[in-house]
């Protein structure tokens, strides 16, 4: 049964090939069946493989397809590796992926690129599955770049707009910048450890490298570069808000649920390596904490519904990085899964809103949709509550709570990280409910067009359900739960040691966390519903307006990158279009021309002049040959 594993990435790949090769010749119905069906079948295959995995006592399982390459000692294979970690990731990708495909079948129905859309989506799912199932880093890189490509294609899906193309290229190039570090990291790892197989690599690393020494730190830092690019963390984060140019299901699947969390997955996958590089772990935690705060502030002032969600995605991934950084691998993965549920839910519901309002993205022009779209409202509310970690009833509470706890309690953590997370939780509640209030409450501002049909409603409903019950998987012991998810992953991701004495203050920390998220939500109601004039007042001050502008532009990173780096690059390339090296060649030509000018006066055209030259020459030779 575990052999079904190969089908999991193979089926979406086949779907992609069929759709790609048909080149739009298929009818919409057939496209939908192939596009959605292939991912659905992949989900079935994943369930079958997972069942087999359970039957065999959850022992890691490898499935070798063939030897990709065998040159000297470099023998990467096309081989899949299934353990608890990849099982979770595979489940999320196929499960959430299937739901979003189903949603897209209706959402995209009027688009002329229907077939192309599903081709790209299937390509993405296939590549993402290769990424999570890869047993060596080269195959992982294949999936890694594959999802990058699919992301590029889908951001630029509506290619008629040049801005979409710009956003797509920005996303690809910025993530590729991280990938360069990743590739160099592969070179270092292969050269030092002689393999790129993840399990062997980690084993060898632990055998030959001293914790904290140079090589694991370097390798960890380089691989981290790739993770930062892919997961839109500081300093390579600016592409994600622009990536919202793609269709909304794309934002849900790629830029919220799965691809952007690949960096989290990578770090967790290589936790054995990072354990040898505590400096890098600390760096990861710091980056996570800073990103989660910066993007939470940025989310506060966005006016585009999708950009709010994009910044919140960055912020939530910041939490996951924070968890990874403090060694709470399973907490990161748990949040990864739960985040996939509620963020996909939020995007899908947002998509329904956008479609209903005829492609309106500006939350300033929305409002009062609660009555007109009750289903969407309630779903969005559930998702928002999960995002803001509304206590006890939402899954987001349990996952974020775990991270906060670990950020404090882990030996690598500390009060500063915890405080950052807590502030983030407060801000999350604030910006989430600002969004909900602006979109769904207050007076209605426009008439709505079409309401989601059942193909869109079912995925939203299922995800809403998952956003609530997902938390049941991992209820901490403090609340009388069994923390089953953590235990399940403990085989792969070692359980967290605690700093001595922290157990005693756990209830206090929990209270603080609950207070932070509820406080954020409460403040949101206060500021945005009951007393909006206060916000206006702050905004009207010079400092307030500047701050809003600064945050709205994502802390100005874009200006730095685009205005300085990208402009310098493009400017140099344009200025040197004619290639200054060629000027050297032209210089040779000019030199010859100069020589020509010097010599042409000897060519008088007079025969007697030439005769004299001959005579002089003869004399010269005479002189040289005989007389000297």
């Amino acid at each position, binding site marked *: 049964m575990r052999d079904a594993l190969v089908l999991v990435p193979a089926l979406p790949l086949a779907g992609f090939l069929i759709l790609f090769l048909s080149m739009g010749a298929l009818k919409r119905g057939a496209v939908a069946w192939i596009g959605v069906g292939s991912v659905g079948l992949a989900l079935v295959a994943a369930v079958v493989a997972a069942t087999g995995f359970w039957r065999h006592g959850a022992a890691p399982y490898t499935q070798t397809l063939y030897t990709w390459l065998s*040159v000297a000692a470099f023998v990467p294979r096309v081989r899949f590796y299934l353990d608890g970690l990849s099982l979770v990731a595979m489940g999320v990708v196929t499960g959430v992926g299937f739901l979003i495909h189903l949603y897209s079948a209706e959402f995209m129905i009027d688009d002329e690129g229907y077939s192309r859309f599903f081709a790209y989506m299937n390509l993405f799912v296939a590549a993402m599955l290769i990424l999570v199932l890869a047993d060596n880093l080269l195959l992982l890189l294949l999936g890694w770049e594959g999802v990058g490509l699919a992301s590029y294609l889908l951001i*630029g899906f509506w290619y008629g707009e040049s801005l979409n193309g710009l956003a797509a290229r920005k996303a690809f190039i910025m993530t*590729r910048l991280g990938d360069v570090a990743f*590739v160099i990291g592969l070179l270092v790892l*292969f050269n030092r450890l002689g393999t790129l197989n993840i399990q062997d690599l980690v084993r060898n690393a632990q055998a030959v490298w001293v914790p904290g020494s140079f090589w694991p730190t370097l390798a960890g830092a380089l691989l981290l570069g790739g993770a930062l690019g892919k997961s839109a963390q500081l300093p390579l984060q600016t592409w994600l808000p622009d990536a919202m140019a793609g269709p909304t299901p794309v934002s849900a699947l790629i830029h919220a649920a799965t691809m952007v969390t690949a960096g989290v997955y990578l770090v967790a996958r290589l936790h054995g390596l990072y354990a040898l590089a505590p400096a890098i772990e600390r760096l990861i935690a710091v980056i996570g904490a800073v990103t989660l705060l910066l993007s939470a502030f940025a989310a506060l002032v966005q006016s585009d519904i999708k950009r709010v969600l994009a910044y919140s995605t960055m912020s939530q991934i910041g939490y996951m990085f924070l968890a990874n950084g403090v060694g709470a691998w399973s907490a990161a993965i748990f949040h990864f899964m739960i985040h996939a549920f509620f963020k996909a839910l939020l995007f899908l519901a947002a998509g329904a809103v956008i479609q209903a309002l005829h492609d309106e993205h500006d939350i300033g022009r929305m409002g009062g949709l609660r009555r007109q779209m009750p289903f969407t409202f309630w779903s969005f509310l559930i998702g928002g509550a999960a995002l803001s970690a509304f206590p006890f009833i939402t899954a987001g509470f349990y996952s974020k709570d775990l991270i906060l706890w670990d950020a404090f309690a882990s030996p690598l953590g500390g009060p500063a990280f915890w405080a950052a997370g807590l502030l983030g939780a407060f801000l999350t509640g604030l910006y989430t409910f600002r969004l909900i209030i602006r979109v769904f409450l207050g007076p209605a501002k426009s008439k709505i067009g079409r309401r989601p049909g059942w193909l869109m409603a079912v995925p939203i409903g299922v995800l809403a359900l998952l956003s609530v019950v997902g938390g049941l998987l991992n209820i901490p012991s403090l609340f009388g739960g069994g923390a089953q998810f953590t235990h399940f992953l403990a085989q792969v991701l070692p359980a967290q040691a605690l700093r001595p004495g922290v157990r005693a203050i756990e209830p206090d920390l929990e209270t603080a966390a609950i207070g932070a998220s509820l406080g954020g939500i409460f403040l949101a109601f206060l500021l945005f519903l009951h007393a909006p004039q206060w916000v206006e007042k702050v905004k009207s001050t010079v400092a307030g307006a500047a701050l809003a502008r600064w945050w709205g532009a994502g802390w100005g990173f874009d200006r730095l990158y685009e205005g300085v780096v990208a402009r310098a690059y493009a400017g140099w*390339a344009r200025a040197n279009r004619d290639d200054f*090296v060629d000027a050297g060649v032209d210089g040779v030509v000019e030199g010859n021309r100069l020589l020509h000018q010097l010599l042409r006066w000897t060519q008088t055209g007079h025969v007697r002049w030439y005769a004299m030259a001959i005579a002089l020459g003869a004399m010269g030779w005479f002189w040289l040959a005989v007389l000297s």
Partner: protein
Amino acid sequence: MIALWLIVIMLVGGIAAWLVAPLHRHASAWVAIAALATDFALALGLAVGPARTAAVTRIGAFFVNVAFPWIPRFGISFHLAMDGLSLVMILLTLFLGLVSVLVSWREITERIGFFHFNLLWTMAGVLGVFLAVDLFLFAFFWEVMLVPMYFIIALWGHEHRIVAAIKFFIFTQVSGLIMMVAIVGLVLAHWRATGTLTFDYFALLGTPLSRSAATWLMLGFLAAFLVKLPAVPFHTWLPDAHTEAPTAGSVILAGVLLKTGAYGLLRFVFPLFPDAAFRFAPIAMALGVVGILYGAVQAFGQTDLKRLVAYTSVSHLGFVLLGVFAWNELALQGAVTQMIAHGLSTGALFALAGLLQERIHTREMPRMGGFWAMAPRMGAMGLFFAIASLGLPGLGNFIGEFLVLLGAYQANAWLAAIAAFGLVASAAYALLLVQRVFHGPRRPELALPDLAPRELAVLGAMLVFLVWIGVYPQSLVDTVRPAILGMQHLVVSPPLLGRRG
């Protein structure tokens, strides 16, 4: 004998194509296809047969060997030999030859017979270069491939074809002359040492040379190969020649002629002057890295589509240079894979540029855009070859680049790390190409018919090969491995002078 037949078929086919031209508009093209296909079948027969089992001996892993005396007084013989490296290069050459004929189907309307004659004679010269193991014969073929190429550019090229053709000719000719001097120098050194006057490659291996003599002779060879490759700063002939050449000329220039430079480095520079080459390796690798980045930046700045693609060649061939001078199995395999993959991907991009120019009569990208809506097949092909050229894993170029980086890292970690930044730069230009040509708002004023079945088949075949190399590169690696091991063996322990294998 088969090695000789490969060349003779090209020569005879060229003349035949010229002669039959008056019969029918496509008569010469069909003759050219027949000749190329015959050659291709012969070479393919070798690839599935003896190439796999070639034994690695003291002098390499040659499985085809044919020699006739030519000018015995100077020790010059007509000596051809083939190993796995030659074979894959020949396969690439013949395949791209077929591609060139097919993409010129409608583009060439004047002097069709003479065009195909030149095409096939260029092919003959290239095959000779890949097969010759007599240095005089090698230099001879080196010039043979040059002259018909000059005609192809100068007669069927675009606006500034004459300047471009002359530039191409002078660069190659001067560097070839320097190589000829170095060949003669090497032969004389061998003569002085042993009293035998010979141009034979196997005899000249391991010629005892003083340190400075070896360096200077190697630089002489290097001059020709680095210009042909081309390495920065000797690359400036390439954008002009590629841009002005007709489509077939661009495809062959990029796909095949550049590879002769890399082949020369592999076959001659290292085996003949191992010590000097290793001493020079850091500089050459640095040149390779400069080429990778400089070519990519330059490509980004271009507005002429063919010029952009031409600069990507500089970038890609930088990887080859880096890989060759790293001289370990990983890097060499990478360099060879990169050569094949570059031949396919860049050849296809040139073909696409040619097809576009045929349709809209411009190469200026600012005048393009939104072509996906009008010609989705062409858009998909363009997208595919652009992402192949940016080195997406799963396609041939990635395998080549990654192996080169892996091998180069062992030779020089810093250079390999810098070279890795080529990945970003290549993404920048490749995506810019896609954006400017295929994406963006629609241009209703332009009529752009989509790819015809013939064109689709050609590009499709190239696509399949690229995917094949990316997904199952082992087939290529296995064919080349004996040759690479053989060459490495030569460099580590050159055969003793006077003892011939």
